[in-house]
């Protein structure tokens, strides 16, 4: 049997497009017909929530939002939920980012959540913006927080801000939450931050990174982890304010089921052919 490359190609293209259409359908349908989904938050997400819940009002918390638009679908809902929770608990929130392409997203989420909770910049929270340096920036903040950021994002001097009262370095901050795409958690905040300056570190990350972070959870280098959109949905459930991520879980469920069916179906055919079908030349 001789098949021309063109014919194979055309057949492949058709299969490909059918699958694309199926995926699109699986993602769009739940936005039109809502599916019932109920779920229990995962333990790892719960741990982070409990930690934030256990802090006394007025405790400083540093949120490092190290991501950019390419992973915002997963991480922005986390930032929203965590900021909302921190403001609800009246914690002193300090926000920063290591990624200069993420500054706009951080600013957006800070301003929106602060307006929602009626918080004032400089008094209840501060958005420090971006600084280059990666691990050197973390080390620098560990020695002298205000030296590293002597002005906030809005160019206001940080010295004398009520929200930063009594904070000299990272050693004075009991909890840091890092929401990150890329190697920010295991490359920056664990080795250069948590392990040196002794704060508790909670993390939210893209699902791509989540499996790599399990060793740090067992060694207590991380106190909790929100993994991908599911983590965000868990946190939204925990603070009883279901939003984008929780809604997204319907589409996520449907698409995963579709993928699993495709994967299993194709492999059953493959294995069947391999053991029982005609041998390839």
């Amino acid at each position: 049997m001789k098949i021309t490359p063109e014919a194979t190609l055309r057949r492949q293209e058709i299969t490909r497009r059918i699958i694309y259409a199926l995926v699109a359908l699986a993602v769009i349908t739940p936005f039109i017909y809502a599916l019932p989904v109920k779920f229990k938050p995962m333990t790892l997400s719960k741990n982070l929530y409990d930690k934030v819940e256990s802090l006394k009002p007025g405790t400083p918390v540093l949120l490092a939002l190290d991501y950019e638009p390419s992973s915002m679908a997963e991480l922005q809902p986390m930032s929203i939920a965590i900021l909302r929770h921190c403001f609800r608990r009246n914690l002193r929130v300090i926000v920063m980012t290591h990624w200069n392409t993420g500054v706009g997203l951080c600013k957006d989420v800070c301003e929106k959540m602060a307006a929602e909770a009626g918080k004032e910049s400089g008094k209840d929270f501060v958005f420090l913006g971006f600084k280059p340096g990666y691990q050197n920036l973390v080390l620098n903040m560990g020695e002298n927080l205000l030296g590293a950021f002597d002005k906030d994002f809005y160019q206001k001097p940080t010295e004398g801000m009520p929200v930063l009262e009594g904070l000299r370095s990272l050693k004075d901050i009991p909890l840091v939450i890092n929401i990150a795409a890329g190697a920010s958690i295991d490359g920056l905040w664990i080795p250069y931050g948590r392990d040196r300056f002794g704060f508790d570190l909670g993390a939210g990350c893209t699902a791509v990174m989540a499996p790599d972070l399990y060793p740090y959870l067992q060694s207590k280098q991380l106190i909790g982890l929100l993994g991908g959109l599911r983590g965000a949905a868990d946190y939204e459930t925990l603070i009883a304010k279901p939003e984008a991520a929780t809604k997204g879980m319907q589409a996520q469920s449907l698409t995963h089921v579709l993928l699993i069916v495709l994967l299993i179906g194709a492999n059953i055919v493959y294995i069947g052919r391999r053991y029982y079908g005609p041998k390839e030349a």
Partner: protein
Amino acid sequence: MFYKRSLPLIICFVMGVLAFCQEFVAHPSADAFREEMTTWFRIMGGFAVFIGAYSLLHMHVTRIRQRQQGWGYSAFVFLGAAATIAAGVVEEILKGMGTFEEGKSFSSFDWLYDYIQVPCGATIFSILAFFMASAAFRTFRARNTGAFLLLAAAIIVMFGNVPISEEVGRWLFPNSSGWQMIFPRANAVLMEYPNLAAKRGILIGISLGGISQSLRILLGIERSYLGGGE
């Protein structure tokens, strides 16, 4: 030759040894040294961005100059960059004049970010969801025991991670609350035991490699960071 090669290697060695030692020194001078050095690198980090920007622009200039395939598209890079930089500069000037109020005035700089950079950036990797679906059907095969284990684990994780697995659990085991959570629990166990063990093994292996690479850099055995030339 001395200034171009030997002296930088000597500085590298000295800096490395100092950086290594300050980790073990309790004296406050070590902290002061660390603060000073990290301040340096923080300031220098601001300059590094310009190199990346330059090489990107340079690549597109070359593309246009040599009329490489698709050189017309490179103009869009300049368009985007010019518009954003212009908006940013205008905003800085307005701020200097005091006519721009943060949060109240319309910022064209933020507008470009919100409505061009954010949607494009957010979309580009989501395309992969389609490719993965197609690859799952057409090419991800249990070719051997390893690939079989991989796919099995992937299916457990993909299923256990979405809420529908709990629905299915409730449907399959309407009476036993322990068994209802079987799929999420299978996911958790897989992640916390075999996955953790393997990831830890990989991590330790990579770390040892990292240390030996650092050592080679310190001693000038690995010197690719110096760039080309003599």
